[in-house]
């Protein structure tokens, strides 16, 4: 392969694939030659053609984000072939649930103290909504964006929307 002294060095993808890195190479901006492992991981888990198709489907200004997220997921899958990055999601979700329960319990304590301290003002305010509403609002807002990893209904076929209940 004749290398021109005026051309840029091949990107990590083209180096890995042992092909000429063209000026319009879709991988070049996101897989610099200094980070060969990044593309190696992505290629091993997802495949270059899948990544290329995915990048072509997103807008140019979103491609860097897409590549970085793929690189993260690929590395996670390399480290844990069974769960990949989904394991991390499960752990974090449980942490969120635990914190929310603790928050609700602490808020309940706060209500009790407030009631005991200012009983005359108790009736002027709507009680019991803060803790539950915070939990409810939290429930409604915290995890509505994505399904639980192990819900069998997480599928584009069913497109099922499920109301988020309380913790």
């Amino acid at each position: 392969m004749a290398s021109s002294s005026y051309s840029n060095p091949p990107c990590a993808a083209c180096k890995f694939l042992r092909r000429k890195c063209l000026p319009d190479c879709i991988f070049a901006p996101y897989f610099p030659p200094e980070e060969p492992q990044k593309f190696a991981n992505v290629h091993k888990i997802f495949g270059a053609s899948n990544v290329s198709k995915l990048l072509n489907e997103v807008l140019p200004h979103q491609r860097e984000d897409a590549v970085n997220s793929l690189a993260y997921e690929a590395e996670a899958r390399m480290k844990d072939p069974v769960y990949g990055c989904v394991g991390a999601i499960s752990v974090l979700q449980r942490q969120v649930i635990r914190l929310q329960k603790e928050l609700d319990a602490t808020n309940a304590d706060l209500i009790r103290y407030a009631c005991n301290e200012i009983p005359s003002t108790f009736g002027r305010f709507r009680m019991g909504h803060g803790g539950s509403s915070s939990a409810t609002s939290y429930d409604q807002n915290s995890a509505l964006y994505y399904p639980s990893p192990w819900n069998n209904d997480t599928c584009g076929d069913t497109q099922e929307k499920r109301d988020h209940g309380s913790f």
Partner: protein
Amino acid sequence: MTLKGGTSQACAACKYRRRKCSSKCPLAPYFLPDQPKLFQNAHKLFGVSNILKILKNLEPRQKEEAMRSIIYQSNIRDKFPVHGCWGIICQLHYQIRQAEEELHAVHSQLDMYKQYQQHQISSLTDDAPSQLELGMATPSNALSIFGHPTTPQPYNAVTTSPVTQQHSYSNSNNAGYSCGYLDSKDHLGNSWWVQHTYATTNNNNNNNTNPMAIQSQLVASQPLAIQQEVVQDYDEIHPFFDTIDDRQSYIDSKEAYESSSEESLKDTIQSIEQVAENELKSAAACFSLTSVN
């Protein structure tokens, strides 16, 4: 495509690839014929050969778990083509951080109530007759008592965000709360795209008003560091699928976790201002009753 002479239908994978689905098809147990979208998503992200490579060296039980995670990851990528699962992890970290900060603030307020209670008890014990006559604490005590924020407002106390926020500001415990909101994004790897994620108004996220985004304090560094710490955690939890909360909704919106965090911050600020006003009024009222002038 059905098997000739057989009663079972070809799996979604073989249907999609227009191949004969044998009884030993490795993907048949995971891609049922009535769920073609699942396989399409998985095939789009991973590809059949890569999926089989992943399953190759796993035990049968591990294969099932791995396929579930692959299917989930693929579905998430279908819904969120740009950020995928990484975006969800960032959001969860942000939620955790926010919950931790709120918890800290509520604990602080609880301690304040306890101190107030103890103070009240001790002041009643010291000056019982005057307390009984006046029905209130001594002026100096009253001043100090009513100088505490948020005491007489239970509903504010339990509407966690405004009160805790106000308490945070008053005690300067979380002086960098508003900054922390931004810093949490900065601390994430490739933070600019996370800011972009949370800054843009989400036209699909219609149901959310307070996406309390939090970042774990563990995740003050790069994404790989985050991953390493979390990996260490979840390596010990096999299996954990049964305990996952499956009551989270699955909406159609793309990039749904983007934005509305700015809106929640505005709501919080407005609530804080309302609380501050109420406290001033109550403090003024009490002042007039307990003034020593």
